[in-house]
């Protein structure tokens, strides 16, 4: 039976198990939209194509399934660029389908023609320009396979309008992807499991560094097994939070620029770092020259390109993490590292007294309190999607994630505007999860149009705006490093509660700590979307902080004890 290229597109997606897509129509993709009506697909109409890519991304991160976004040529396609780059940096498997002008028009600067495969070449794992109906099935099937395989990431398929309209026969067996397996072969210079095991068994002060790869590989249990058997403490990257339960006694917490002081200090004192599915980003190493100088290093990552990139390691293993750990575990000696664990306890030292959590209610509303209450009231069980800025770091510090894939945030690219659309995707992937968006007043205003999508799709998504009247994280840098010269960081906003109501969303405004719990509970009880505008302390800062490029152990600490705000 002959199908049009447009039908082949949907047939291929459906065969691969795709049930939901996020998109926005236009001329060059119209044939595909028309054909969509014949297939069992839920299409979520977004308000901006950037939103479609973040939704596909949130969908993928929440579920581990491939997220699909679709847009027209030209502006539709270019609007996807930020979302594609975001997914690339955070290894999120999404497939973006774009319409393209007719194949005869390519290169002629036709109406809404853009070289989107050229534009997205460095920010996709791969992309395709499909100019005939026959090529649709192999391209779409391969795109999905590439997005999921190895280190996941975004793939774009650009399909000309005539390729969507023409008909062809499809041989589905012949269209199945044949990806080169060469990358799976060991290469000269690869480390050996036995070298890793020997280092682990000999170490006195080992530390596991667990990243996003733990969840992508599904190695959550294996990592904990390694930690427990060897009595090895664990430090977690921002994207790794939730992969190991925050409540696990060997889980020290988050590392890096806004990580816990004792975690960063432990890294500097360790004699062995076991880096699992993380990539030594500059935000977690600080000054590379002084980073973990006493430690031998083992690095496991499925992407060989990450090995020996930022940090030179002793044993570099390019492998799926779970497979690697399964090999190691039987040979890891059960350890007793009481002295090292006691040392870390000592490092925790005065952190507790500095913690803003222990500040009595002085009439001010601090973001940390809001997050802490949210954590308490949701019993740490919500799926939280955060935006980028101070609130993102406070969430990471004060919301204790015990569940894998229960925190979704833009780490590598740090994309403001990510949270609301990503949460929509996450809610659609996991309808039974309680979803909370934690977003700044700045980032929210970048993509708040997607509130309309929340309403049109009838989604029970809760939004907590941490409203400090500033582009807070930038203001903090200005406070610390630019002499408090607040250039372009004070930001106004609408009355967010009224705005939400205009969209048909229940809303509240909270200015006092005593009112936080009531508002959160009300939002939770409501089985549809709710928004709370938390008007928090304006000039609060995130502590501790390792200034960019500074030594990891040289952190700016919260002034202690906190008295200056208690006076008024």
């Amino acid at each position, binding site marked *: 039976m002959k199908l049009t290229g447009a039908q082949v597109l949907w047939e291929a997606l459906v065969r691969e198990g795709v049930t939901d897509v996020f998109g926005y129509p236009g001329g060059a993709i119209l044939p595909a939209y028309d054909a969509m009506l014949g297939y069992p697909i839920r299409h979520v109409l977004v308000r901006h194509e950037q939103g479609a890519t973040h939704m596909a991304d949130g969908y993928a991160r929440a579920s581990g399934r491939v997220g699909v976004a679709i847009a027209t040529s030209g502006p539709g396609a270019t609007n996807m660029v930020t979302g594609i780059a975001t997914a690339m940096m955070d290894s999120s498997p999404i497939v973006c389908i774009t319409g393209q002008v007719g194949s005869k028009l390519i290169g002629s600067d036709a109406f809404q023609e853009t070289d989107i495969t*050229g534009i997205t070449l460095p920010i996709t794992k791969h992309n395709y320009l*499909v100019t005939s109906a026959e090529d649709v099935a192999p*391209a779409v099937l391969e795109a999905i396979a590439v997005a999921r395989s190895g280190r996941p990431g975004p793939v774009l398929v650009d399909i000309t309008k005539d390729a969507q309209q023409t008909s062809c026969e499809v041989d589905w067996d012949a269209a199945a992807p044949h*990806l080169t397996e060469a990358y799976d072969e060991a290469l000269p210079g690869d480390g050996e499991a036995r070298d890793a095991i020997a280092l682990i068994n000999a170490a006195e002060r080992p530390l596991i560094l667990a990243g996003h790869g733990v969840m992508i590989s599904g190695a959550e249990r294996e990592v904990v097994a390694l930690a427990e058997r060897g009595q090895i403490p664990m430090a977690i990257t921002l994207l790794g939070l939730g992969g190991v339960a925050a409540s696990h006694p060997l889980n020290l917490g988050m590392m890096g620029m806004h990580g816990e002081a004792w975690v960063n200090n432990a890294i500097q004192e360790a004699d062995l770092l076991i880096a699992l599915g993380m990539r030594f980003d500059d935000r977690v190493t600080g000054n590379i020259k002084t980073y973990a100088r006493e430690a031998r290093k083992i690095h496991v990552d499925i992407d060989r390109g990450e*090995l*020996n*990139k930022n940090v030179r390691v002793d044993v570099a293993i390019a492998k799926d993490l779970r497979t690697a750990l399964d090999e190691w575990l039987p040979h890891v000696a059960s350890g007793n590292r009481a002295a090292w664990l006691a040392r870390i306890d000592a490092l925790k030292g005065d952190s507790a007294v500095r913690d803003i959590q222990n500040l009595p209610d002085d009439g001010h509303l601090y973001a940390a309190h809001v997050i802490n209450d949210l954590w308490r009231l949701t019993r740490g069980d919500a799926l939280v999607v955060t935006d980028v800025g101070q609130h993102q770091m406070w969430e990471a510090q004060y919301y204790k994630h015990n569940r894998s894939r229960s925190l979704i945030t833009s780490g590598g690219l740090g994309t403001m505007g990510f949270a609301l659309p990503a949460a929509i995707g996450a809610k659609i992937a996991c309808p039974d999860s309680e979803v909370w968006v934690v977003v700044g007043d700045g980032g929210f205003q970048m993509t708040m149009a997607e509130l309309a999508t929340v309403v049109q799709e009838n989604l029970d998504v809760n939004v907590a705006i941490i409203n400090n009247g500033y582009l807070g994280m930038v203001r903090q840098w200005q406070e610390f490093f630019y002499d408090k010269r607040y250039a372009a960081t004070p930001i106004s906003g609408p009355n967010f509660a009224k705005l939400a109501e205009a969209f048909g969303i229940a809303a509240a405004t909270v200015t006092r700590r005593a009112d936080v719990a009531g508002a959160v509970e009300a939002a939770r009880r409501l089985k549809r979307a709710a928004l709370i505008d938390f008007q928090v302390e304006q000039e609060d800062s995130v502590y501790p902080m390792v200034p960019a490029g500074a030594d990891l152990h040289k952190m700016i600490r919260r002034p202690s004890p906190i008295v200056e705000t208690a006076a008024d």
Partner: protein
Amino acid sequence: MLHTFAVYVDNKPGVLNRVASLFRRRAFNIESLTVGHTETPGVSRMTVVVDTDEYGARRLEAHLYKLVPCKRVDNITAAASIARDLALIKVAATGEARTHVMQLVDVYRARIVDVSPESLVIETTGTEDKIDSLLEVLRPYGVVEMVRTGRVAMARGTPPTRRSPAPRSAPVAAETGGDVSHGSV
């Protein structure tokens, strides 16, 4: 140090662009890149020379493997190999100078492939060193134009020079227009 890679890729539109873009994006400097057909239809072979250290070379190899159209990468830097460069050199030599130039061409086992009243075109093949040296001695006579292909290389003997991989039946890649062969960056 200079590393030489033999890179086997699908002979599909846009593949050269992908490889070149990878080097640019990862901030590696290409000393030379040549590309042409292999003995296997559908598979092209690039010879890429890059200035980097051992870790850089390994990462580059890893990144090349991540390109979907890339089938195999051999770092033949350490292998015993034959490397050749081809140059066409136009020299403005008349009268007595012309005789001198022709003698030099003989010494270097190069060939004169075009003669016009004002100039000669010399073709030479060899290692980059040999061509550099010929160029040096020709310079005083007035080199008016020169073009070089860049290095092509092959490991000696059988073991490392495996047969080039089979082409992939699978689809299309981006870019319309010409294939990757006969290109050079």
